[in-house]
């Protein structure tokens, strides 16, 4: 028989085995499918959300090649004719974008456009507005997107009341655009009418340019003389800036999903290895019949590939369903509030789906590779005779490799971020995890050596059994160690984050009551009259007001929040410092968050140029403070300095210290009546604000907890499979024990004891490994992803409880998985030779 024929024979024998053991096949396929489902699900969620966001952005920027963006501060209208007259510009469209406060509460994004100019960049707009084109140029006329009309319950001809300052402005709905026009909830007005109605005379938000074909957009952008605070960027860069906001969060989610895939891969490895060991007699027989080593190895790999193909296909389909469910319930940012949070549909290309099927296949092949090599290397004579399988992970090479990986991983953690992402940190975690896994047998033996129950035969049997089969036990332990250590690492990181966040809230919220202009609202500010009214409200002892405006320091990075607030000595002392202010400078001092320090190199003593009030102001970085609210950065400046630069004395936030005994709820109600700004202003007590902040934190990490639990579940599945697989080979052993007078209850105890020992070793090793990995997560990954520092806090009680639960779960799992050995037929297995 030719070589391919022999390999085919070998594969046919294996396939028959698979058919004979449908449960094992199902477990292996299920492990792959689960890992792929989670990875694919997270990927589909991310890509769908970003695709949606990008499309929404492109819908707004239309056919523009370049966008001159002034941000929330805006740019002077006179820039528009200057740009429009440039010979390289084919068409220019001025846009005013304002988040207007609605009189009934909430806000609406209003785009003020020149319908004629906008249509040059986006001809479809003409079609959308065909019947109401000239209605739009009427004063106070507005066209609503379908989403806006639906959410506001408005139709053509209805009135829409917005709040501008203290005034209420009534607009008239002249059209509802088709759903295909704009997916977002927004309104469109004639730009002149918008400037007048929204109090933005002479100001634009951006100017969209279509360039003459062949014009280099980047070169043109670099050569433009723009006012401070304005940037010129291509639409792709605009999309990228927004995506950057959530990039680190999404990358972390992808890594979590990869945890599940990694654990699933270990389960495949464990099942393949143990099943090949169990079938060593059949492999030896095939060798005796003339099948070569390489052909048997090929058959094992082929078996793995088919399992992976089935698991990958199933996992991709389930991943799609998971993504559909999650997008519908939590939105594209999984509840983190970074991308809008509106329900979305899954968008994934056939190529992406095919890639995940291929990934599942690759993982299964990788998991089968070592077993294939071991099988091929087995001495058939010994395997035919029976006896202990000649398998070990305990060789010196494995130990040396393990130690080498640990050291290399530790060193890798000190590398800087790549492209703003903590890739070296992830690599460090993977290297150290692999290294730790190779040292599992050593650890297991060390722990088992410490356990010496004197007068308990069953316990001694369990320990002896594990010691005698530590190499095989190490395989089943691997899945537990991977999942539990990563769970421990994540738990320490999240707990540290939460504790640090809670402590930080206490530092940055010293007042009793807070008020702010409702988010997404550009048309209402608290002026000096409102500030005086607040300060004079009964029950209010002291007040402080702040102005927060976004400023752009770099075209390729999200805006930074400039926070103008009164900075007396007491206020300065109360900031959550990372680097306290020292020394003096002739320049105006500012205090930057860690993100600004990391992203812009704004170390203490360095100089920054801030585009404020239409000019660039040189300031000195005096100190660095911790800010968990804004991952893109914040800069604190003395309010008087800001007012001097901008002549803007409006405030967007305020804090009130109350008299002893004053009720925050009552004072908030009184303030609301005094200000009469309706839903444009939020009032919230410090207690409630802290509760709400912590709830948002927990919500953002809910998906993390779920993924951790699933990973641990996969690990336990590994224990279950290993015990079930070994149970078959131990039927005679358990039969002998029954003959020796060991009761069924004692045998269950033995199984539970072995499972508990596996769980104990896995938990202990997982705690140690996870503790080390958490250092990388806290001090490297988190720092490089979000640019904020955490204080390491270890949740001892929770980890102890988790370890205890794992031990119990492993005991229960092992007992259930191997219960077949307790049956009467198992007892008779001692005489199977008859």
């Amino acid at each position: 028989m030719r070589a391919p024929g022999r390999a085919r024979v070998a594969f046919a024998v294996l396939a028959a085995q698979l058919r004979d053991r449908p449960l094992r096949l199902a477990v292996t396929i299920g492990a792959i499918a689960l890992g792929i489902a989670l990875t694919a699900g997270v990927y589909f969620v991310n890509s769908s959300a970003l695709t949606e966001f990008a499309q929404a952005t492109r819908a707004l920027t239309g056919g523009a090649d370049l966008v001159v963006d002034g941000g929330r501060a805006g740019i002077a209208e006179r820039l528009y004719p200057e740009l429009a007259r440039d010979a390289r510009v084919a068409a220019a469209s001025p846009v005013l974008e304002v988040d207007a406060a609605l009189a009934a509460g909430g806000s609406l994004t209003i785009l003020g456009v020149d319908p004629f100019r906008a249509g040059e960049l986006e001809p479809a707009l003409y079609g959308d507005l065909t019947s109401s084109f000239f209605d739009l140029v009427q004063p106070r006329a507005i066209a609503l997107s379908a989403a806006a009309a639906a959410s506001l319950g408005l139709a053509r001809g209805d009135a829409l009341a917005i709040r501008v300052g203290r005034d209420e402005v009534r607009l008239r709905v002249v059209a509802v655009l088709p759903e295909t026009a704009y997916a977002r909830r927004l309104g469109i007005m004639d730009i002149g009418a918008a400037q007048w109605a929204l109090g933005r005379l002479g100001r634009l938000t951006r100017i969209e340019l279509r360039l003459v074909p062949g014009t280099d957009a980047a070169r043109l952008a670099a050569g433009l003389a723009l006012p401070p605070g304005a940037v010129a960027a291509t639409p792709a860069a605009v999309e990228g800036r927004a995506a950057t906001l959530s990039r680190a969060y999404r990358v972390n989610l992808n890594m979590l999903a990869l945890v599940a895939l990694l654990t699933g891969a270990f389960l495949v490895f464990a099942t393949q290895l143990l099943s090949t060991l169990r079938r060593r007699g059949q492999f030896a027989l095939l060798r005796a019949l003339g099948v070569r080593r390489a052909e048997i190895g090929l058959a094992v790999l082929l078996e793995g590939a088919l399992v992976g193909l089935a698991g990958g296909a199933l996992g991709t389909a389930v991943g799609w369903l998971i993504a559909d469910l999650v997008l519908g319930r939590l939105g594209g940012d999984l509840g983190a509030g970074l991308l809008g949070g509106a329900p979305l549909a899954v968008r994934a290309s056939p190529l992406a789906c095919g890639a995940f099927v291929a990934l599942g296949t690759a993982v299964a092949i990788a998991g089968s590779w070592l077993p294939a090599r071991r099988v091929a290397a087995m001495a058939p004579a010994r395997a035919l005779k029976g006896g202990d399988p000649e398998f070990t992970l305990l060789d010196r090479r494995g130990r040396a490799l393990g130690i080498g990986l640990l050291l290399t991983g530790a060193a890798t953690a000190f590398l800087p971020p790549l492209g703003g992402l903590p890739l070296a940190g992830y690599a460090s975690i993977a290297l150290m995890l692999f290294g730790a896994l190779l040292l599992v047998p050593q650890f297991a033996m060390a722990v088992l050596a410490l356990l010496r129950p004197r007068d308990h035969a069953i316990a001694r049997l369990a320990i002896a059994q594990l010691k005698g089969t530590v190499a095989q036990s190490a395989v089943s332990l691997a899945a537990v160690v991977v999942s539990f250590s990563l769970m421990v690492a994540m738990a320490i990181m999240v707990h540290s984050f939460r504790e640090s966040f809670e402590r930080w809230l206490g530092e940055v919220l010293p007042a009793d009551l807070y008020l702010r202009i409702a988010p997404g609202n550009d048309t209402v500010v608290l002026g000096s009259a409102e500030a005086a009214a607040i300060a004079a409200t009964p029950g209010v002892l002291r007040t402080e007001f702040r102005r927060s405006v976004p400023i752009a320091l770099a075209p390729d990075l999200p805006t930074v929040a400039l926070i103008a607030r009164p900075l007396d000595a007491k206020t300065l002392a109360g900031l959550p410092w990372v680097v306290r202010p020292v020394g003096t400078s002739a320049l105006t001092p500012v205090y930057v968050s860690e993100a600004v320090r990391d992203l812009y190199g704004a170390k203490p003593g360095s100089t920054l140029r801030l585009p404020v009030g239409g000019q660039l102001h040189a300031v000195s970085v005096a100190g660095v403070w911790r800010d968990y609210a804004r991952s893109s950065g914040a800069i604190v400046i003395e309010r008087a300095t800001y007012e001097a630069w901008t002549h803007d004395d409006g405030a967007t936030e305020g804090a009130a210290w109350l008299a002893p005994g004053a009720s925050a709820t009552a004072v908030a109600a009184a303030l609301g009546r005094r200000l009469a700004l309706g839903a444009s202003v939020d009032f919230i007590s410090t207690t409630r604000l802290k509760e709400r902040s912590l709830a948002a934190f927990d919500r953002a990490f809910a998906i993390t907890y779920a993924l951790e639990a699933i990973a641990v579940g996969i690990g336990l599945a590994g224990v279950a499979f290993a015990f079930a697989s070994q149970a078959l080979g131990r039927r005679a052993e358990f039969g002998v024990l029954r003959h020796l007078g060991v009761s069924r209850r004692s045998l269950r105890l033995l199984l539970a004891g072995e499972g508990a020992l596996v769980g104990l070793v896995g938990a202990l090793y997982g705690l140690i490994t996870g503790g080390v990995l958490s250092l990388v997560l806290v001090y490297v990954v988190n720092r490089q992803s979000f640019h904020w520092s955490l204080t390491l806090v270890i949740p001892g009680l929770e980890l102890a409880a988790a370890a205890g639960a794992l031990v119990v779960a492993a005991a229960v799992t092992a007992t259930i998985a191997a219960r077949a050995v307790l049956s009467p037929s198992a007892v008779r297995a001692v005489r199977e030779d008859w």
Partner: protein
Amino acid sequence: MALLALQRVTRSYRADRPAVIEDLSFCLEAGEYVAIMGESGVGKSTLLNLIAGLDRADAGTITLDGTELTSLDDDAMTLVRRRSMGFVFQAFHVLPYLTAAANVALPLELLGWPEDRRAARVAAMLGEVGLAAAGERLPRELSGGELQRVALARALAHAPRLLLADEPTGNLDPRTAAQVLEVLRTQVKAHGGAGILITHSQTAAATADRSFVFDGRALTPRLP
């Protein structure tokens, strides 16, 4: 009173098939060492399982040392096996992850013997089967004959009242088989209990006090 007594024991697995064991009565006295022969499939293993309490008779009684085994529940029967029975199998069934000494000690540990007494007994038993120096070796380091002797030492360590040997020499060469059979007989006689040897081999059967042929219904004495 007989050490072991079977009274009209019947066992069938399917109502539409003849009983595997039908209306069998048999007695074994203390100090007796008997061999039971029979064709394959005749029910020898079933007989052993019934005596060991690992299977339940459909009818009849089995009594060991005055205790009616057929009336005991599983836990009680397990205790009887632990205290009063020893087993030797064709495939040895020595636990692979325990040393020879630990294997022999296992029944004593299950009975709660203190460590020093246990160690002394294990050493003695290993000496009696000619493996005094092999106590710390693992099963994979022992030959087939050595493994069977370890199994024999384990079966006799706690001086059981009844030793059941199921084709103990089936996997051994003739010389080793003879050694094992000699040890079997000597130990049974030395401890005052009784022994049943299931075998296909006439040579092995000849080492017993009496031989029987089992046909499912009766144990017919076999002439030498």
